[in-house]
């Protein structure tokens, strides 16, 4: 996608969005509600025209050759709309015809996706209107995978699934790695973190972060956090830790557990004290017992919060400029 912009009246839904996804890659597309995720996906799938910019799919312009692009896409829209009065197998047969799957391959593909999505035994002949939300999601995913498209776009595919189904879905998506390009939008960040090679975060219509999880951690979370469980005079310990260079914050949980252990959270800048140094300080501060001292691994949620917060801050304070090393977020996507 190159410099894509879409306006709804005076509201800019998507502004100058550019990114590239490599073949066989699984990419998570994240953003708060109303950030422009669905608009971007709809433009990419040929459902909507952008006001400016270009979207290419396997080298073909989506705007100039929508038919060619649509044959390469499996799209599962948000809320997964399905006809209520068709049986699952009838629906997939109809979709297979519309997606120009050759007649000799049609039954084989239908059976394969129904097996993949665990629809074959329980839901094959059921009316879609009578299916539970989880089964409906599976029908939507089966439809997206039906024509073995080069690119699968799924908008919130795990909504309504129970933990077992989410796990199965994760393994299904992971199985697609290397075979199809998958663009996945979800609010369930651990899901994205578990199965995506790369993440694109969009906020207020602009790409605010893109890259693999590790690089995003480096870019957005330039600090470390430790959790310490101990029995001690916590005020004394807190002062001792705060006196250390590059320690930015020390917080104490209000409540102690049954064993009278208190919990401290220590935030440090990059290059600040590591675990051994902290242990040394603790022993100097007269700590009675230390049950644990562990670094807390930042999650995608932390990255998401940091990235979206930063873009909001920039909007709130338009005079402030970005750091030069963080400026070309979009160009780094390639």
């Amino acid at each position: 996608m190159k410099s894509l912009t879409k306006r709804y009246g005076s509201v800019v839904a998507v502004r100058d969005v550019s990114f590239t996804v490599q073949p066989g890659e699984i990419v998570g597309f994240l953003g708060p509600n109303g950030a422009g995720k669905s608009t971007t996906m709809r433009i990419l799938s040929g459902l909507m025209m952008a006001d400016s910019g270009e979207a290419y799919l396997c080298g073909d312009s989506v705007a100039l050759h929508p038919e060619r692009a649509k044959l390469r896409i499996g799209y599962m829209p948000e809320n997964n709309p399905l006809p209520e009065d068709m049986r699952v197998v009838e629906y997939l047969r109809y979709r297979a015809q519309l997606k120009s799957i050759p007649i000799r391959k049609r039954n084989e593909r239908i059976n394969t996706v129904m097996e993949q999505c665990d629809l074959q035994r329980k839901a094959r002949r059921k009316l879609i209107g009578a299916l539970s939300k989880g089964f409906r999601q599976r029908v939507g995913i089966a439809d997206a995978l039906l024509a073995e498209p080069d690119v699968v776009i799924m908008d919130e595919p795990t909504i309504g699934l129970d933990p077992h189904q989410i796990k199965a879905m994760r393994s299904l998506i992971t199985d697609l790695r290397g075979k199809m390009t998958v663009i996945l939008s979800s609010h369930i960040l651990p899901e994205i973190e578990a199965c995506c090679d790369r993440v694109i975060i969009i906020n207020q219509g602009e790409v605010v972060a893109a890259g693999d999880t590790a690089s995003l951690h480096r870019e957005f979370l330039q600090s470390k956090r430790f959790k310490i469980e101990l029995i001690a005079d916590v005020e004394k310990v807190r002062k001792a830790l705060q006196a250390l260079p590059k320690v930015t914050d020390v917080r104490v949980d209000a409540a102690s557990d049954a064993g009278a252990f208190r919990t401290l959270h220590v935030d440090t800048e990059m290059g600040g004290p590591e675990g051994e140094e902290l242990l040394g300080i603790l022993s100097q501060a007269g700590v009675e017992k230390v049950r644990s001292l562990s670094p807390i691994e930042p999650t995608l949620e932390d990255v998401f919060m940091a990235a979206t917060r930063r873009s909001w801050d920039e909007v709130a304070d338009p005079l402030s400029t970005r750091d030069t090393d963080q400026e070309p977020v979009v160009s780094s996507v390639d």
Partner: protein
Amino acid sequence: MRYTWLIFKHEMRMLLLTPSSYVASVLFLAIMALIYWTVIRGLTVVASETLPTTSYFRAFWLPSLFVVPLLTMRSVAEERRLGTLSTLLTTPATPLSLVLGKFLAVYVFYCGLWGLTLLFPFIFAKVLPYATFDGRLVAWAPMVGGISFVALSGLLFIAVGIFSSSLTRSQLVSGMLTFTLLFLIIAFANLMQMMPLSWEEGPFLGLLQEPLLYFKATQHLEDFSVGLIDTRPIFYYSSMCALLLSLAVINVESRS
């Protein structure tokens, strides 16, 4: 064209499986049978120059007003309500093929229903052979003329229904809109002609007479019934149908 055919087949299948189609069909056939019976019964009371089939087709407007909304209100509105319009358009099917496929399916179904009513004279002749007299009950010419008119006007009527259905997500609103537009199309020219439109009232009103005749559906039926094939109604119904379907395509494109 391939996608139009696929959507047509699918829509036909759904029409044949949907209970509302059967409700509409039964209601339609029952009312038409009643009208036919009334026409035949009338002939037993008062002698008439008009053939029974011609009198029967004169009531074309009555079933059209309810059967067309019932058949078309679901087509695009339901897809929009469920959101399946977007899913459909992520395939290579275009809005044009979608609208054409849906239109053709309802049109074929509508013509099929009217075709079934052509059996009435034959059923009547079979059940009451003594009542058939000198072939006037099963006269082919008014039958062909009447059904040709129904098929031609059906293009416009169904296009009105598809257009209304593309405007809204609500089947009810779509049905009411179709009913209103059909009423205007069928009755407007007749109602206007009841007004004193003559040169004495003013040149403008006098000028309206000819155009009103052009839009008068009942006059078209009369012409067709007597075997008068005028190209003007053919142009009127087919061009209006094309216009409304084009507007429906634009609606589908902009709202998908």
